[in-house]
């Protein structure tokens, strides 16, 4: 296994924000996968070393970065109707209005955005299942900012 090539691949991954890269050519196959604590290198098959200077094969199956905000008919976004502070629960000690995986209907209050001491309840407006929560509790949000991604049901 050529360490220089692996370094190059690691650089490639970093500069393109890739999470996984797999390369195969006549002489070797390498898969690099990014995990939360770093990069795990697995080489499922190592074939006899090629002559030095073998050109690196073209990357196959490089995973593009997932676009969390991409539009799709399968889901919709709940966005903030005002500028303010985002709160996940009706009060500091209470349970959050929703968690990931919760089914919701159109009238469900999913969060509060507080502005000028007024607690504005934000409703789902459409039924679905909570897929992603973009904002941390207590953080500021602006008008139109995506708060939740909801899978349509």
């Amino acid at each position: 296994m050529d360490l220089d090539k692996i370094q190059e691949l690691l650089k490639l991954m970093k500069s393109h924000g890739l999470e996984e890269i797999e390369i195969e050519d006549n002489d070797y196959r390498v898969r690099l996968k990014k995990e939360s604590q770093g990069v795990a290198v697995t080489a499922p098959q190592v074939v006899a070393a090629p002559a030095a200077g073998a050109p690196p094969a073209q990357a196959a199956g490089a995973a593009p970065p997932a676009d969390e905000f991409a539009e799709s008919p399968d889901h919709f976004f709940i966005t903030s109707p005002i500028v303010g502070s985002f709160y996940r629960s009706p009060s500091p000690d209470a349970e959050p209005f929703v968690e990931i995986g919760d089914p919701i209907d159109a009238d469900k209050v999913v969060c509060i955005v507080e502005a000028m001491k007024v607690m504005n309840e934000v409703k789902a407006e459409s039924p679905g299942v909570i897929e992603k929560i973009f904002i941390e509790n207590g953080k500021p949000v602006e008008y139109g900012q995506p708060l939740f991604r909801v899978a349509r049901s």
Partner: protein
Amino acid sequence: MFTRILIANRGEIALRVIRTCRRLGIETVAVYSEADRDAIYLKLADESYCIGPPEVAKSYLRTENIIAAAEVADVEAIHPGYGFLAENRRFADICKSCQISFIGPPVEAMEVFGDKVKAKSIAKKAGVPAVPGSDGPVADDKEAVEIAHRIGYPVLLKAAAGGGGRGMRAVHNDASLLSAISAARAEAQIAFGEAAVYVEKLIERAHHVEIQALADAHGNCIHLGERDCSIQRRHQKLIEESPSPIISRKQRDEMGRAAIRLLKEAGYTNAGTVEFVIDEKGKYYFIEVNARIQVEHTVTEMITGLDLVEEQLRIASGEPLRHRQKDIQLNGHVIECRINAEDPDAGFAPRPGRVSMFFPPQGRGIRVDSHVYSGYMVPPQYDSLLGKLVVKGSDREDAIRRSRQALEDFILEGVPNTIQFQQRVLEHELFIKGKHYTTFVDEELTT
């Protein structure tokens, strides 16, 4: 001095305020509607917040959204710019109760000058002559005729609740007054919801000359000379200049002192402009006070060398004025041309759209305040001002010549605009001789 402020405005004035803040090391927070997502000054602000959809009422005029952004961004003060909430008493009040400094005059002074009747009575107290007319709405036709006789024809019938040049009718004798007054009342009712009408002397061939003033919270007040804004189209200013070609040094001193007396009488602080109308005989009359920084403040900056936004920030943060009246000098001659996205061949209809090429003139004595850039999309929801071209010359003739050159060098493609129209004004004999007046453009240059 403040360390962090929010600019509650958009376009060229937002950029202008941000620029001074950056120079003074003040952190800036900008706000934008969805239509202003691509605003260039958002790149220069330290933080920016989307405060609503394109509609003005739901974004730039939405006090709650502006204040919420100010609190979330933890700013010490808000600069309101001009227009929008700049002269909104409720907004200034709420800033105060939220412990956010409002960069402008105190609410009480805004109240006085926001009311025509109160403003006139303060002017009387301060010994400042106001345009002769009724002290308030006329009770009936009889009173209107009496007043017209007292002040002399021609007179203007004005809707009490009106503004921006709307709801006004000129009459030259009793017969036309009596026939016009009921129509005027009906118009006022429809346009402004109030049939109240008042009578004012119509100054013909008038010059509009305004005095820029600064007042701090320590009792100091100075004036920074005048701006002549007599080139207007339907009461909208097109060209402003300083010094005025029609007033003498003595008149400037007199009007300046009158402006100071008036503002002091009302307890006014921060930047403010006292507007006067000057008749053919050179007599001046007070019209109103603009309790904000104005579009044409740039003219005064170029001629005095001061940064008025900086002065506003200093005054609002409690500092005393750093200049005395004798320190203020007007050097050279400055002319400003407003460039609007309007089609002069289509009755100056506003023309939003994409500015394909924006290349402003450059060089000594040329200042361009504009938020526009090549590829910028002019949104339809806001005013049509693309930018201000401010040119300084050694004297009026030099300033006119340089302005004409600068307009010629100004490349602006993609939207119809008023650059060529401004050229026509600057080439007109009446303007060159300084013999123009407020209705000259309407009468001579527009069909």
